């Protein structure tokens, strides 16, 4: 009976703030991409179809800008979270509880590739695996590139007061190509890595519920489990009551 209860013990992986921000990220990303892609591929049959489905170019422009404002919002919310995490909660801004890359991440990548090819075993991950850290930093790099170039395209007359006209052409290339990278990465790589791989198909609920079972914890993040198991305070904090 005790054994049974232990099996169903759950642990917090994402707090309410993480989950809420991720919800904003995914809805605003969906909003900007579905309203932006038809413009990038204007002239194709599917772009014409999608434009009709969304209610025309003007409506797409509104969806795109509203979603962009939401992106700016969660971007600021995240920076505020990091400031709170470091300055108020006095937590270390690096280390295994943060997505700051370490040498181990590069070793893990190499070991994982070898494992995929049938040589050796899969690497053991801590709280954030290297591909999860990459997800995070990809967004961290992409948001300023797409966001700033998007602002230039949104307010060209303001920015051309101190930038030459060619800056608008450059902003167009940056916005469009970086967005293609984001779409190609998030909808394929991120979706597979976290949601549609066999053991999670069709959706990994942890980012929505915030909870994982002890079995998942031990299996997926053995190093973090080891740190948690041996630290009564941390174990107590993370256990779902």
């Amino acid at each position, binding site marked *: 009976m005790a054994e049974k209860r232990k099996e169903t013990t759950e642990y917090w992986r994402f707090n309410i703030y993480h989950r809420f921000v991720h919800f904003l990220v995914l809805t605003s990303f969906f909003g900007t991409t579905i309203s932006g892609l*038809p*413009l*990038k591929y*204007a*002239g*194709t*049959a*599917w*772009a*014409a*179809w999608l*434009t*009709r489905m969304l209610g*025309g*170019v*003007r409506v797409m422009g509104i969806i795109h800008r509203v979603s962009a404002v939401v992106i700016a919002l969660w971007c600021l919310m995240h920076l505020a979270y990091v400031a709170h995490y470091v300055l108020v909660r006095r937590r270390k801004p690096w280390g295994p509880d943060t997505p700051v890359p370490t040498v181990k991440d590069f070793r893990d990548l190499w070991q*994982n*590739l070898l*494992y*995929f*090819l*049938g040589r050796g075993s899969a690497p053991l991950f801590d709280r954030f695996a290297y*591909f999860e850290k*990459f997800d995070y930093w*990809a967004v961290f790099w992409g948001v300023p590139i797409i966001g700033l170039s998007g602002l230039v*395209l949104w307010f*060209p*007359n303001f920015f*051309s*007061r101190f*930038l*030459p*006209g*060619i800056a*608008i*052409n*450059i902003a*167009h*290339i*940056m916005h469009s*190509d*970086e967005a*293609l*990278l984001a779409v*190609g*990465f998030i909808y*394929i*790589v991120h979706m*597979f*890595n976290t949601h549609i*791989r*066999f*053991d999670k*198909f*069709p959706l990994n609920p942890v980012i929505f519920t915030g909870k994982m079972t002890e079995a998942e914890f031990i299996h997926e993040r053995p190093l973090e489990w080891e740190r948690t198991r041996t630290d009564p305070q941390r174990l107590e904090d993370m256990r779902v009551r």
Partner: protein
Amino acid sequence: MREIWLSLAILAILLAGCAPRPQTWPSQPENPALTSTWHIDVARFLSSAHGGVACETCHADIAVGETSMPHPDVTRLTLSATSLYDYSTCARCHPQEYADYDRGAHAAARAQSEGEGEPSPTCGHCHSSHYAAAYTRAELLSNVAETCGTCHPEELESYRADYHGKAALLGYEQAATCTDCHGAHAVSSLYDVGETVQACRRCHPEVNASTASYRVHARETLNAGSDDTRAQESALLFWVKLFFTVLVVSVLAFFYTHTLLWFLRSLHERLKKGRHG
């Protein structure tokens, strides 16, 4: 298993919506005999914008009942009727348009190239006198761009890569087409910044000279060794485009390979366990 079939079904429905279908541009005459500029498809003519205009209004030298015809020299029939017609006749009903044309870049180029090679355009090269329909704004958007594009293909391509052209392709009626910036009859190349600002302000009243130096017809070409501003700008766009292309391709190539290998490994592990036979 049910989830897999459900996902495949949803994917199939989504893909069906993306199936390619032919672009619908204004239709061309089906009968090859009718492609000669000396033949008129009367049915199409009658339903065109000029359908109510009698032949002799424009072709005054055709007098019904007389034996004399306006083109006695048979060898002229091998030439395009458009190149032989005197389009100053149009000025009788469209005096403003003709006067505008007369002071525009097309008329200037035509006067300069008199008698040599392909003549620069006059009315009939852009407008079909017999078949032009009374276009809606939406039809006009694609029609104007196509028409100008027959002589200015590079400009058509760069226009369609620009937001103005993209919005027009997606059916946004307020999007600018060629003539909205360059003028319909008094066509201008808009090399003059002051003139360009005026053109932009027809739709964007707040535009300044710096915004107007934005290049609608941007070309990402490397033109090293030239100190011409346009060549430098094109070179700059070339390097920015190259940087982002390399970034996009390398990141996606790396992670797609990573994901594919991961998928194959987990499929292998799954089959080894025998869960799916």
